[in-house]
């Protein structure tokens, strides 16, 4: 029975990775850049809720919405100030280094405002745990909320891209920015929208993550950010279903590895699986071969 519990926990952690990985994969697909500051937006989202609820006594639901709004603003602003001027730069390394710089900036800003002490985060999930099989399987409220959120996000995002004009614009921009412009699509606006969606999702992921693992520091977003990046690459960067599959697999492998092999080696196992997948299929599980445009 403990195996089932582990798998459920893995699904829950994997759902968080998947929600974060969406931000990486969408931004990569559309702006062709790796936004390494994405993980720190998660931390900002969690800190906003912490500050609102624990320090200002704000209603938790209101705090969640404020946090999403702040992260959206932050993501769009980062893109506008730091990345947009570099679009068309000779080397994509320039943007990558800038993204790492933004990541350190956000971490140190949080350090300055909230200090280095780890805060204990109060869970934002008002659902009671569910016990099955005579109490042998326990599913926490956080787990239910996380998996449910992941499902809702995936369904709405897929529908958004398939059915709406901005969604189709995203597909067009991800394939060919020049041709998209000739269709009358505002490429910069579409990239901003992508950052907005990714950052809003990062806020949700941050709140879910800190509700499930209730400790918060300026470095909280960094490791899950890297893991989610791996999940995105694992699933095939640029692919939305890939982010889901990559995230879920990574979460389940990590939890099972921790439980049955060694908790110290859990991350090693995760990285090993990644390396093996990339050796066999360099574009990731669902990745498509990138065509070079002339």
């Amino acid at each position, binding site marked *: 029975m403990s195996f089932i519990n582990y798998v459920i926990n893995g699904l829950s952690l994997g759902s968080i990775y998947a929600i974060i990985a969406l931000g990486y994969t969408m931004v990569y697909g559309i702006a062709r850049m790796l936004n390494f500051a994405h993980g720190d937006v998660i931390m900002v989202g969690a800190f906003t809720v912490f500050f609102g609820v624990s320090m200002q006594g704000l209603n938790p639901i209101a705090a969640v919405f404020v946090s999403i709004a702040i992260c959206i603003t932050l993501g769009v602003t980062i893109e506008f100030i730091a990345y947009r001027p570099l679009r068309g730069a000779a080397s994509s390394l320039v943007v990558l280094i800038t993204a790492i710089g933004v990541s350190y900036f956000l971490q140190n800003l949080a350090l300055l405002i909230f200090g280095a002490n780890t805060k204990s985060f109060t869970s934002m999930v008002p659902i009671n745990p569910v016990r099955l099989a005579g109490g042998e399987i326990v599913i926490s409220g956080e787990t239910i909320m996380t998996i449910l959120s992941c499902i809702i996000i995936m369904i709405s995002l897929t529908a958004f891209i398939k059915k709406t004009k901005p969604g*189709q614009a995203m*597909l067009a921009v991800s*394939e060919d920015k020049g041709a998209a412009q000739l269709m009358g699509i505002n490429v910069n606006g579409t990239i901003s929208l992508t950052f907005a969606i990714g950052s809003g999702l990062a806020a949700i992921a941050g709140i879910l993550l800190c509700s499930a693992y209730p400790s918060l520091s300026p470095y909280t977003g960094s490791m899950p950010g890297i893991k989610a990046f791996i999940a995105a690459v694992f699933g095939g960067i640029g692919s939305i279903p890939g982010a889901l599959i990559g995230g879920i697999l990574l979460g389940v492998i990590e939890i099972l590895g921790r439980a049955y092999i060694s908790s110290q080696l859990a991350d090693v196992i995760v990285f090993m699986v990644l390396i093996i997948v990339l050796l066999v299929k360099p574009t990731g599980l669902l990745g498509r071969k990138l065509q070079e445009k002339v």
Partner: protein
Amino acid sequence: MAMLEIHDLEVFYGVIKAIKGISFKVNEGEVIALIGANGAGKTTILHTITGLIMPKKGRVIFDGIEISKIKSHKIVSMGMAHVPEGRRVFAQLSVFQNLMLGAFTRKDKAEIENSLKSIYKRFPRLEERKNQIAGTLSGGEQQMLAMGRALMSKPRIILMDEPSMGLSPIFVNEIFGIIEEVSQMGTTVLLVEQNAKKALAIADRAYVLETGNIILEGMASELLDNDEIRKAYLGE
């Protein structure tokens, strides 16, 4: 009044002057051909007109409005469509999705539906393959899709960049036939072509470009009889 006027246009790629101060105009209803060898600057001119490249000097005037500083994506809704070189269809999207992206700036759903029907009528092959992924179409079919996609914006002027490039002779004839048809439906056409013979055969007037300058202009029929042109561009 000319529909499209280009005045003293200068375009640079870094320090290299690609377009060296050219002027020309396109009147409503005309088919204008820009011909010239590789590297003469034909594509650069089209890119500058639709705002993909900013000129260093000079003005582009469309319907009396200066558009040299207007962003590309806004020019489409003013009634100008551009079929880019190499077709550039969205290879991973379906034929239908490509066509609908062509109508991106339009709002009226019923009107868009009508345009779609008329394009399917003109290009029955596209209707047969509407659910097929564009990247799997043949070169000629992709060119038809690129044209259909541009027509979905209901343009008053359409810019076409090397529509016959890399196509089999049968498709080349078909594509030129379509361009004539588009023109007969009332759309103004600015055509860039290396296939000078075919281009001059359907054009009203033409400009001959050489390394960033217009070296010759005139009625297409006269240029077809010009000895210099015959030697340099028609291979005779």
